């Protein structure tokens, strides 16, 4: 006769197996399908923490980073873009975003069974993260879904209607971010082929950067660009914001290990080294070319390093991270400062120059420096320079190309619809007088 607590443990195990059995059966190509999984409290504790760190990257990290760079009359409106996007994306993710991105077994999108997160119960576990509760996995992915569209605000600063902005956030999440996340991370075709993107160099940064470029072109230049003084109102906010981004990014990269283990540790190291290297290489480039190392430059360099190491963080060793960082600082400095000036588009806060270019660069350098010794399960064939796998370069270019092309096309269509229905740009008077007072009825005094 079994003791009552043994009987209860047996019953719980059976119930747990039944609960996770259904989603496991639906997904064919996940490691461990059908095997019973155990919630690991160390993994869960880390992933709970990582979710908070990544959320902090948007509010207030990105919010302050951007707001400090705009003129005083637009500070509140810029903060409202990050804050409002956070709220909107949270709900849309719950309603349909998570379902499309991270459930089901389609090559291009998931399925719609997780509408309103209905099947997600207390004990649910996603096969994509088998040692943590699905609630935590869903939340972690939500914070990525929040920051990606929020990044686009950098390109549309100072001139977009708030109503159009919020609708754009929701539509872009569902039509651009969720499919691409599914392609690379959710069981879709790019991940299945073997493209490597550890924490979102293409899914997040190239994606947002491309959307930023399209948005900047469709909105048109700010009035007075080139003649009016558009100097940043308070770069101290931008330094605070960039610092919060740097610290929070450990949740972004090391958290993408989805476990609290050796991969997380190496990802953290790679992130720190690349970021510091990029801050210094941007600073050096600027010191030589513009004669002074600016504070805006050094924080921008750090962000460029963070962006570029993102796809590589779980696949490279410290030396690879160092090279990626040095390259990112210099390449993004040239892209954001010199190429932008030459071509003349108004990507106000360098969404494309830092995130687009940095993300693409990082994705390609991931193919160069990935090492199967660093991540044998995630990159079993390794990369080009260390493991001789030149085929990885092809996959990385495919990833970059597919994300760029799809994002550009669909972003363009979304904005086209918004432009010819509710309109996307504020009037000239509103733009001259300022967004804070006109869109939100508030100003910053003093």
């Amino acid at each position, binding site marked *: 006769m079994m003791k009552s607590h043994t009987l209860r443990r047996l019953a719980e195990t059976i119930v747990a197996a039944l609960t996770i059995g259904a989603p496991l059966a639906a997904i064919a190509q996940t490691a461990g399908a059908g095997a019973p999984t155990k919630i690991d409290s160390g993994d869960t504790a880390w992933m709970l923490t990582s979710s908070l760190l990544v959320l902090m990257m948007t509010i207030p990290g990105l919010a302050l980073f951007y707001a400090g760079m705009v003129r005083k009359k637009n500070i509140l409106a810029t903060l409202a873009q990050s804050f409002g996007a956070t709220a909107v994306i949270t709900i849309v993710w719950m309603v349909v975003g998570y379902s499309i991105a991270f459930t089901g077994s389609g090559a291009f999108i998931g399925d719609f069974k997780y509408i309103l997160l209905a099947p997600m119960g207390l004990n649910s576990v996603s096969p994509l993260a088998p040692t943590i509760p699905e609630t935590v996995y869903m939340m972690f992915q939500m914070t990525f879904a929040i920051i990606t569209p929020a990044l686009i605000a950098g390109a549309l600063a100072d001139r977009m209607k708030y109503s159009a902005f919020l609708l754009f956030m929701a539509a872009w999440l569902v039509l651009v971010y969720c499919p691409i996340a599914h392609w690379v991370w959710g069981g879709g075709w790019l991940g299945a082929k073997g493209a490597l993107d550890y924490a979102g160099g293409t899914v997040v940064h190239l994606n947002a950067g491309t959307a930023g470029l399209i948005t900047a072109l469709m909105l048109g230049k700010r009035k007075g660009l080139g003649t009016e003084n558009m100097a940043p109102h308070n770069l101290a906010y931008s330094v605070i914001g960039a610092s919060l981004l740097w610290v929070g990014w450990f949740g972004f990269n090391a958290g993408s290990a989805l476990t609290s283990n050796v991969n997380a540790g190496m990802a953290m190291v790679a992130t720190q080294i690349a970021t510091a290297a990029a801050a210094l290489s941007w600073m050096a480039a600027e010191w030589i070319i513009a004669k*002074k190392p600016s504070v805006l430059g050094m924080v921008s360099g750090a962000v460029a390093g963070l962006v570029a190491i993102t796809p590589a963080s779980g696949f490279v060793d410290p030396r690879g991270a160092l090279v990626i960082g040095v390259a990112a600082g210099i390449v993004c400095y040239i892209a954001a400062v010199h190429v932008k000036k030459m071509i003349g588009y108004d990507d106000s806060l360098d969404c494309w120059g830092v995130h687009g270019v940095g993300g693409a660069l990082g994705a390609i350098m991931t193919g160069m420096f990935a090492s199967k010794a660093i991540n044998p399960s995630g990159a079993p064939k390794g990369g080009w320079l260390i493991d001789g796998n030149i085929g990885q370069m092809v996959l990385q270019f495919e990833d970059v190309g597919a994300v760029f092309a799809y994002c550009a096309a669909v972003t363009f269509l979304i904005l086209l619809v918004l432009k010819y229905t509710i309109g996307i740009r504020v009037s000239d008077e509103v733009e001259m007088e300022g967004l804070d007072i006109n869109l939100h009825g508030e100003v910053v005094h003093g």
Partner: protein
Amino acid sequence: MKMIVAVVKPFKLDDVREALVAAGVEGLTVSEVKGYGRQKGQTEIYRGAEYQVNFVPKVKLEAVVDDAEVAGAIEAIRAAAATGKIGDGKIFVLDVEGAVRIRTGENGSAAL
């Protein structure tokens, strides 16, 4: 009565204030202003975007004194505020028609 208006470099404010107190001037109004004379502004650069800032931050002092004290006050200000470099500022003297102390209603010199 005369109003002495002086525009000086901001870091000189304390020196000027002390010099005026020593010269017997008991009241002062100070405001933060921007301006230029022969001193040209600075160039600021943000990610490659250059902005020529024409106005330089200054501090404006206003003090109303009896006619007899004007020369002493001007010399006190000038000695304390001078650095010898372009941008030291200027001192102006304006005629004042009347003055009233709000608390007591006193008029003229008694109000100063």
